[in-house]
């Protein structure tokens, strides 16, 4: 087990390094050729009408030096815990992460938890009522919800929530340490909505797994022993059916955290997603590199934790 963990950690580190190199190459080699560099993007036509000023900006931003040196310098700083500074305003990226990452994590975690709260019982209910109208209704609803983009649903909620109930999302974001009640009011709706799409998939997955487990011999044995249906489901079937669900949760959570950009824009939340999207628009290279690094680390570590969790959930599994 220890050897397995060590191997996986090394693999994780290599993956993160590879991702960072690919992103660096894309940003500093391919994008400038195809599209333009940061100075071209942020200055638009003015960089063309004032080439000397554009060159001076490139010098100031460290864009005219050797690429390999730039990458090595960035990587060295990362190892020292220094994520760098924004190209355009010099703000330390660490400071921004400190403020923004908890917002995105909270959105993702609460969203997923709220999704689970609905999807697990509904999936179990669909399995128990297989091929009857509750099953059809739940499956159809799940497919429908899976097909609709979550951000579109969010915009509909805002538009019609306003028209019918004169409601609008709260403005003026407050951190939980500043004003817990206001914070919950601000985060509740986006967290619920962000969990909708993955919960739809989870309903179907839970249903499928439950059906498979319910057909196993040990379940038949439990039923033959006279245990109630409730006990059979809650104590025997659910635990085994949730193993693949844990996998999906483990993979969905980091994707949710990394994919909150649209919801953060719609609900005006200061999360990592908006930070990354804004930096991509202006080609703020240090921000992009460091944010991608953090996100890729989250995803890689989440994958590892999911794999390790199997040994807890299923004692038969050993590495």
């Amino acid at each position, binding site marked *: 087990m220890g050897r397995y963990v060590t191997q996986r950690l090394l693999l994780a580190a290599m993956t993160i390094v590879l991702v960072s190199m690919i992103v660096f190459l894309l940003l500093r080699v391919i994008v400038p050729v195809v599209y333009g560099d940061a100075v071209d993007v*942020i200055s638009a036509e003015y960089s063309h009408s004032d080439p000397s*000023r554009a060159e001076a900006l490139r010098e100031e931003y460290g864009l005219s030096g050797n690429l390999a040196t730039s990458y090595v310098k960035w990587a060295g700083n990362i190892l020292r815990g220094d994520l760098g500074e924004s190209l355009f305003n010099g703000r330390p990226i660490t400071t921004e992460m400190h403020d923004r990452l908890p917002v995105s994590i909270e959105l993702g975690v609460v969203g997923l938890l709220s999704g689970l709260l609905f999807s697990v019982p509904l999936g179990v209910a669909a399995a128990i009522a297989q091929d009857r109208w509750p099953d059809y209704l739940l499956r159809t609803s799940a497919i429908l919800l899976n097909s609709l983009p979550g951000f579109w649903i969010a915009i509909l909620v805002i538009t019609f929530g306003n028209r019918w109930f004169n409601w609008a999302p709260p403005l003026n974001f407050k951190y939980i340490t500043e004003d817990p009640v206001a914070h919950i009011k601000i985060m509740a709706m986006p967290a619920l909505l962000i969990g909708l799409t993955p919960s739809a998939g989870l309903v179907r997955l839970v249903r499928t797994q439950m059906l498979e487990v319910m057909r196993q011999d040990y379940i038949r044995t439990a039923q033959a022993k006279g245990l109630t249906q409730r006990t059979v489901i809650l104590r025997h079937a659910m635990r085994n059916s949730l193993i693949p669900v844990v996998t999906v949760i483990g993979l969905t959570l980091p994707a949710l955290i990394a994919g909150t950009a649209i919801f953060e824009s*719609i609900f005006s939340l200061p999360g990592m997603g908006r930070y990354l999207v804004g930096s991509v628009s202006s080609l703020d290279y240090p921000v992009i590199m460091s944010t991608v690094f953090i996100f890729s680390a989250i995803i890689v570590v989440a994958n590892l934790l999911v794999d390790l969790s199997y040994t807890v959930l299923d004692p038969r599994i050993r590495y």
Partner: protein
Amino acid sequence: MNLERQNYWSRRITRRHALAGVSAGGVGLAALGLVGCGDDDNGGTTKTIEQKQEEVKSILWQRVDTTAQAVPGGMFQSYTTADTTNLDPLASPSFTANAWGSWVYPRLTQYKAGYRVPATGEVEANLAEKWEQPEPTKLVLHLRPGAVWEDRAPTNKRPIDADDVVFSWKKFAALGQSRKDLVKLPDNPNGPVINVEATDKNTVVFTTQFPYAPLLSALGYSRYLQVMPRESDGGYDPKNETRSGSAWMLSNYQRSVKFEIKKNPNWWGAKNVLLDGFDIPIIPEYASGLAQFRAKKIWAFALTQDDVIQTKKDFPEMNLDQGAFGRTDWMTYFGLQPDSPFRDPRVRRAASMMIDRDLWIETFYNTANYKKEGYPFTVRYHTHISSGWEGLWVDPQSKDMGEGAANFQYNVAEAKKLLSAAGFTSPIETEMRWISTGQYGTTFPKNAEVFKGMLEDSGMFKLKVINPDYATEYLPNIYFGQGNFKGIAVGATTEYPEVDQWLNSYFHSSGARQKVAFQGKDLIDAKSNQMIEAQRKELDATKRAQIIKDWQKYTATTMPMIPYPGQANTFSATWPWVGNLGVFRAWDAESGREAVQTKTWFDKSKYTG
């Protein structure tokens, strides 16, 4: 990367299609409007146009000066849609810094607000209290006594002095995004300003290389010289902090969340400022912003023109102000390579006559729906300057335009005669370029497609569409290509506060963005050049205006580019507790910080939020 589009939009958008699009948009609006809104019937009968006009008129035209009743206090709930790159207006490569800097950093002059009518760009005193021009190439400005910086370290309420102005000028000349519009540089020999010096603590002298009529106006423009304290060089971080010398202070900036602007108690005019400040949350998404406005959490909102009528119906108490005409004038321009048919002015004039300007304006400004609802609006055609240049623009639909007026009329038969005279009796096959990505907004590609449709509808053009990449192809090869491309291009232009920069940049053969002389050396219109040079040196405002009008009449006959068809008034929405709405009207948003927003007030007696 060039793409020939093979989707729905690549079909010709003909006149019929354009009209159908307007109808479809109207149906879509009506469908949306069915949700949760009332109808406009009046006791069971539909209102007549005259009844609707009376009803709308009573709301739209209440530009009542309520300053005498104003009660100071309150934070105006505004909004914005994006963060700023940084807060240093003199060194940032992005204009967002200029916009935010304009709240706190003073300019030497400012544009006088219009009183119940649109502003005209007339300049008045600001940080410079008075000035004189002892010689045509020298402008001497005297700073306002009592103007001080923010009462916070390191400025500590220090008086604003001439050395701050010189410091700021040097920074602008070295680092300013728009420095080439004003500063003479080795690679910019036509830049007018050659020196700025402080002759004493309160006097600054600008020296130009030739008499430069627009200088005072340029000194009021937020993209040029915003005066920063000397302490910004090392005493604080100007990219992330500010020190105010103006009516307002940036008291808080929380990235991705909001800006908070507060009244500067140390500003020389502070006792007349009616608001305590502005709360400006960042709301990137239009639907969210509209919801916030409808919920009365923000007090002013830039409704899309499609939403104006429906929102007004939902909230009859909402105030609608009819805005001034804008000063942007985008262009359709031509490749001028040696074999280009567009080198012949008859071909360019013919192309202009194929544009149905009325239909285009109706399509993109929603004028049909406004007309149906009785909303007042005015339509103006652009010339080679925008129709928003009050006092300078010549109406091409009037006799004032002279013989060139014909080139602005939709007249395909006459256009064909011109082409025939130029030797073209069969369709001209060429290329037409525009960017399809979002740099010019989401409506721009549709504008260009309508132009293409109108040109092809005449039967005299066959156009192959090419959508170049904005940064790597469009900007260097087309926009800055000086005519060295094949066919036709459609594109945005830069808005300037002063028409001189517009004329020089786009229409003088040596202009940085010129599109009228092939590579600046061939096909030079000497008469146009001479008129442009004359207007910038003419210090008499009336004579200068006449030169600019004469230039428009001249270019109407040569049609070096085809201006965008024109514009109609747009509407902006606020709630009734915004006092003095529409009474004081800014020349541009940035100049409104002191000229207009200091006179806005919060009428609590009308507040229902």
